[in-house]
């Protein structure tokens, strides 16, 4: 009885997602609050983007002014430069590998901690939680030696794999509650239906904890996209640089071309934004209706 109910309840979950398409306008108050919030959030960003259309001199003499005249050469130069797109590609590769790695490994180990019963469960969780308390900055010197011994210096994997490792603590901490929250009923129902523990894992646990999985994927991607310290130490040749390192192009030996930096970084934040925009729709209820017995 419970089995059919349980599986029947999943169907509404999927149609719930389709039903989720917003149909009505909300309370104007909500929109007002949202507007205030968005203006506050975006004002500095707009300043940064507009800064790319000015010259350094303009920024010094008229800090709060609008571009006058509008200088589009910075943006155009960046878009035309081969190095920008090369770095763009590298950043994309590293971020994708990191995200997939973190999600894959993170979900697997979180599942173990959340739903299996064994002696060392607490210790395993504490291991990852402890990792949260160390910033990358301090481990970088010995970490570099490990990376070198693995032969991964000046290699994009030498950036991606440590990023996976350092991304695991947050991932585990976020995912364990989501995976725990799936009621035992469903697991039992699946077992009665003949699914193994692993089967339950792939076919039901992961989809049901999708909000959590998507959240950690987003965090991992953005963390990797913006990471500066690790690529700085690991990557040597220009051809391998990721976007954050590319900012260095616009700093001469003693100075920084602020306007160009603003243009460059405005453009480099677009992919992370896109990734988020696409995936945030998936942070939708997975447990809707999964409960009734």
């Amino acid at each position, binding site marked *: 009885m419970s089995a059919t109910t349980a599986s029947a309840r999943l169907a509404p979950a999927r149609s719930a997602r389709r039903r989720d398409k917003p149909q009505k306008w909300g309370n104007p108050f909500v929109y007002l609050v949202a507007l205030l919030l968005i203006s506050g959030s975006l004002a500095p960003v707009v300043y940064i983007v507009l800064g790319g259309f000015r010259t350094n001199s303009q920024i010094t003499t008229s800090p709060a002014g609008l571009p006058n005249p509008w200088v589009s050469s910075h943006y155009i130069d960046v878009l035309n430069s081969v190095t920008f797109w090369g770095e763009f590609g590298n950043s994309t590769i590293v971020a994708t590998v990191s995200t997939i790695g973190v999600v894959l490994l993170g979900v697997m180990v979180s599942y173990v901690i959340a739903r299996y019963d064994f002696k060392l469960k607490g210790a395993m969780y504490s291991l990852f939680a402890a990792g949260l308390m160390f910033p990358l900055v301090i481990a970088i010197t010995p970490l570099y030696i490990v990376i070198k011994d693995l032969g991964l210096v000046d290699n994009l994997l030498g950036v991606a794999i440590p990023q996976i490792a350092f991304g695991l603590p947050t991932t585990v901490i976020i995912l364990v509650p989501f995976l725990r929250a799936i009621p035992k009923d469903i697991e039992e129902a699946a077992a009665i239906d003949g699914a193994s523990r692993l089967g339950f894992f792939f076919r039901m646990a992961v989809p049901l904890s999708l909000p959590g999985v998507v959240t950690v994927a987003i965090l991992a991607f953005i963390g990797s996209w913006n990471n500066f310290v690790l690529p700085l130490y690991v990557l040597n040749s220009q*051809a391998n640089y990721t976007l954050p390192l590319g900012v260095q192009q616009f700093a001469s030996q003693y100075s920084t071309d602020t306007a160009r930096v603003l243009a460059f970084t405005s453009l480099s934040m677009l992919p992370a934004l896109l990734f988020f925009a696409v995936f945030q729709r998936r942070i939708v209820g997975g447990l809707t209706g999964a409960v009734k017995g």
Partner: protein
Amino acid sequence: MMKKTRTAAIAALGLGLALAASACAGGGSSSGGGQSSGGQVTLSFWTNATPGPGLTFFHNAAKTYHTLHPNVTINIQSIQNESFDGKLQTALNSNSAPDMFLQRGGGKMQAMVNAGQLQPLNLTATDQSNVSPAAISTDSIDGKVYAIPMDTLPEGIFYSKDLFSRAGIAAPPTTIPELEADVAKLKAIKVAPIAVGAKDAWPAAHWYYYFALRECSQATMNATAKSLNFSDPCWTKAGDDLSSFLKVNPFEQGFLTTSAQQGAGSSAGLVANHKAAMELMGNWDPGVISTLTPNQKPLPDLGWFPFPAVPGGQGDPSAMMGGSGGYSVSAHAPKEAFGFLEFLLTKDQQQAYGKAFISIPVNKAAQGIVTSSYEISSLQAFNKAAYTMQFLDTVYGQNVGNAMNTAVVNLLAGKGTSAGIVSATNAAAAKGA
């Protein structure tokens, strides 16, 4: 079974991506340790020159050298200045040091020598004619040479001739009281008299260094380098000088939040846009300023005068402080590495260097390329100086230097005293070497 297919698919995807990534990646080129194979030698060269005429110079030099010595290939790698030291240190410690690299000198060089990471260099007679013993002395320890200097970067006060004449200042000041009087005149025409990037500490600290250079005798300063004990009263007196100089409000508004060189909003930017009249800086400043002017060309009315004399100081009023950019050879690099550095010292290369970096090449024969008025002024002062010292945070090592810089900023922020500078630098010794 569905789940197995999905697992396999995910695994394959991940593996495929990983393979693609490593294929696309630059093939993990070796970052250090020149390789020789059958006479072919490949060397690595790390510099903090970033894309522009400076980096182009190094690429051209490597190419020319390759034409002269076809068996030697040199890879020039550029690393941004602020990131340079950390990256270099990591490479040195993990036995993947570059063959040639920028050397800051002073305490950092001492530490590298102590760890056996540098090769002592044997200069031939030709080399010694290319670079004078005085220039080499800053890159030597106990008589052994550990780096080859490329240029000299004497420090003095850059100023705007236009703003000076508008304020009614006929000639640059030669003593501190005269400087203070000029400060008042510039305030009258509503211009910040002196720009300083105190957020980065060292620009403010350089005022302290120079007051110390004027107050302390050369013997005292050299002795302190060995003992790292700042008990001589001249150190406190220098702090007092800085405090009383502060009383005339010579710096721009908000100097604590102004950086030195970080583009727009920096102290160099203020000078470039005629919002400030003076700045105490080394010879790299004109280059920085030229990127921040409205038309992004060098500032046409830029002038230079040496740091004024302090009445009653034990230091020689003509003494100068300056940095130098030199290159070291790592301990296990092949002999061809030194050959390239010797090549960079020759007159033609030095002339090209001076043009590219707008600095004063260390080879006297090449110094004829110096043409702008401020460069000529600084070169003359440099050649006339009784003695020169490197910047104190280089001479006294990173640990003490950092503490000194911090204490100076505290003084400027109203939270420290001149006695505080002395006690901070003495305390720093306990935390490090």
